C-alpha cells in the first residue's frame, strides 16, 4: 500500500517551507510529527499505517527539522489553545480547515496507536 507520509527535506529549508505551506493549503487532515528522533519516526510509521487510501484525506507530514517550519507552525490557528510552548509537541493534528485539534506531547514513551487514532479522530471532528 502506498505510503501517505510527506517528509520535508532536511537539506533545503526553503524547499521544506514551500512544501509545508503547500500541504497546509490542501484541506487535508494532517498529522504533523516534529523532529527526527526514533520516537518521532515510529510515530510517523504508526500514523501512516492507519491513514487509509490515497484518495482519503488523512495524511502524515514529518518535519525532521522543526525550526525550518516553526514560523509557519506558530501561525496555525489553535482555538483550543493546546500549545503554549512549541518545545512540547511531538505531534499535532490539523483539521481540514487547518485548525490544531489535538497535540501529543513529547515524553519518554512512544505514543500508542490508540492515542494517534484519537488525535486523527479529533482532527476529523474539528470542534
Amino acid at each position, binding site marked *: 500500500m502506498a505510503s501517505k507520509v510527506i517528509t520535508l527535506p532536511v537539506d533545503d529549508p526553503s524547499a521544506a517551507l514551500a512544501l509545508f505551506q503547500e500541504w497546509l493549503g490542501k484541506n487535508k487532515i494532517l498529522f504533523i510529527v516534529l523532529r527526527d528522533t526514533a520516537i518521532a519516526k515510529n510515530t510517523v510509521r*504508526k500514523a501512516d499505517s492507519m491513514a487509509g487510501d490515497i484518495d482519503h484525506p488523512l495524511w502524515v507530514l514529518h518535519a525532521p527539522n522543526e525550526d525550518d517550519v516553526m514560523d509557519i507552525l506558530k501561525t496555525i490557528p489553535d482555538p483550543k489553545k493546546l500549545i503554549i510552548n512549541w518545545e512540547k509537541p511531538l505531534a499535532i493534528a490539523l483539521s481540514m480547515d487547518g485548525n490544531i485539534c489535538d497535540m501529543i506531547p513529547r515524553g519518554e514513551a512512544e505514543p500508542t496507536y490508540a492515542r494517534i487514532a484519537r488525535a486523527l479522530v479529533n482532527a476529523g471532528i*474539528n470542534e
Partner: protein
Amino acid sequence: MKKQLLLVILLGCLHNLFGQYVAIKEIDQSGNIRILNKLREPIDVNSQLSIQINRNVLLNDVGQKISSNGDPKINALLEILRTYKGLIEKMKSSIDQYQEVFKRNSTLEQQKDAVRTVSKDALAILNIFPEDSESGKRLEQAFKENELKSRRKDVFEVILSFLIAEMHTQEGRLHELLKESGFYFQLAAWISTDQGTKPVHLEGFDTLTQGEFYSYERNRLYLSPAQLEEFKQLNAFFETLDRSNAFNRFSELLLDHLSKVIDIDSIQIRINDLREEIKDMESTAISQKDMLIKRLDTLVEKIKLLDQTLKNLKQKYFVADGIASAGSKLEVLYEFEQDLIGLKNQLEEIGKITKTIITPDDIKKLGEAAKNVEKSLELLTSDVTESLKRLEERSVKAYKMAIYGREINTAALEVSKKVYKLTLDKIPESTMLDLNFTGKREPGDLIVIRAMLWKGDGKSPIQTETHSFPMMNALAHLHMSVAYAFAKPVAKGKNFEGGPLVSILYKFKSHNLAYRNFLDIGIGLHSAAYDFNNDDTPEFAGGVITSVFKDYLQFGWGFNFNAKQGYWFTGLRIPIQSTPVSLVSTANQ
C-alpha cells in the same frame, strides 16, 4: 419501567421476517418461489419447503425471558451487546458515506461533513475502550496487526472491525451463559392424511427416516374407476328421464339427500306419537297434561320452521336459475356455509326445547305414566342430536375442508423422541422439506411444522410457533371429466338432445383453496355421443368446453360429425348417491 433488553447477533444476519422463529419458502415443481408469510397457507402437493431459522428472533425471546428473571450477568451482557450493535450500525453507515464522498466528485463541505460524522462515531467507540483496560490493549493489538497487513485499513475501519470482533466475543460469553441456563430448541414436522398423522424428517433436526418417494400425479389423462362408474350412472339416470322434468328431478334428488342428513319425517312422527301418548296418559293432573301438550306444540312449530328452511334452501341453491344467475359463485358458497350454520342453530334450539318439555316437577305430579313420556322424549332428543351430528360432520366440516383444507388439532401433535433438542449454539441455519419424500398424499392433506423453545426439563415448551400448510394441486394441470350434456343443435326448430360427454380440461394455476375446491374453472376439448336424427345410433361429436364449479357445470360448442351439425350444450355432473359429492360426503351413509 422495565427495561427492554434486546439481543443482537451479527450484522448481515438473516433478515427478521415478521418476528417468527422460522421463515419458510415454497419452491414448486416449476421452480417458482413463494414466501409463506402466514401461519396457515395452502401449498402445492409436490413442492419443496425451504425453512430458515431466525436465530436472532429466537435469541431475542430467550434474552427477554432471561432478563425477566433478573439474571444480572446476562442483563449486563445484553446491555453491552445492545450498545455495540447501535454503534456498529452507525459506524458502518458513516464509513460507507465517507468512502462514497471521496470516490465521487463532491464539494469540500460534503467531504468535511462526512469526515466529521465518521470521526464522531469513531470517537464514541474509542471512549468505550480506555487504553489501560483489557479491551484497550486488544484495540492496540488490532492496530498493530493492521500495520502488518498488505492491505491496511484506515483508522475508522480498524475501529469498526475491532468493535465487531468484541461483539463476537461477548456473544460467545452469552451463548455459554444461555447454555448453562438450559434453553434449547426443537423443530418438528408432521403430515396428516386419511391414513392418519405421522412425523416427517427434517435434515439436521431429527433422526427420523426419510419417507418413500411419491410424486402426486398432477395430470390425470384417464378416467378413474370412480369416474367410469359415474359415467355409467349419469347415462342411466338421464336416459330414463323425462327431460322436461330434468331440473325438478335434480333438485328433488338433492333435497332428498339433505333430508337424509336431517330426518324431518322421523322427527315429526315421533312428536305425533308423543302427543298421542300424553293425551292418553292416565292422570288426574289435567293442567299438567295441557302444559306438556302446549310445550310440545311449541316444538312442533319449530320443526315446521325447520322443514320450511330446508325447502327454502332447495329454492335458493338447487334450481337451475338460482345457480346460473348468481353474481359471484364464491359468495354463493360462503352464503351456503352461513345457511348451513343457521340450520345447525335451529337444530340446536330444537334439541334444547326437547330437553325442557318434561320437568322433574311434571313427573312428580303426573305420576308413573310420565316416565314413559320422558323415555319417548329422550328418543326424540337423540334423533335431533344425531341429525345435528350428521349435518355437522358431513356438511360444515366437509365444506370447511374444501375451503380451508384439512383441519387437525395441531396442539395435540406429539413430538417424536427422534427430534433433537438443540442448544442454541447448535441450531442449523436452515433445512429443507421435500414433500415428494413424505409418502403417499393427496390434495387436502396437511403439513404441520412446529418450532419449540424449551427451558430445562419443562413439560411443555415456553414458546411454540406452528405453521400449517394444506396441500392442493395448485399448479396448472390437465384432467378428464365426465358429464351428461344437453346439446341444442344450431339448426332452427331442433330441440335439446342429451348424451354422455367426456372432456379433457386445462385447470389454471391457483393457490386458493376455495377457488380450487369450488370454482375450479377449466377449458378444453370434449367428445360426446348424441342421436340428433333419433335413429337409435349414437353419433360422434366433439368440440370445445368450459367448466365451472369443479366440473359440475359445463358448457361449450361442438360439432356432430355424423349429423354434420353444430351445437351448443350445457353439461351437468349430478351428485348421484354412489358418486363422490364435493360438498357433502355420503361415505358414511
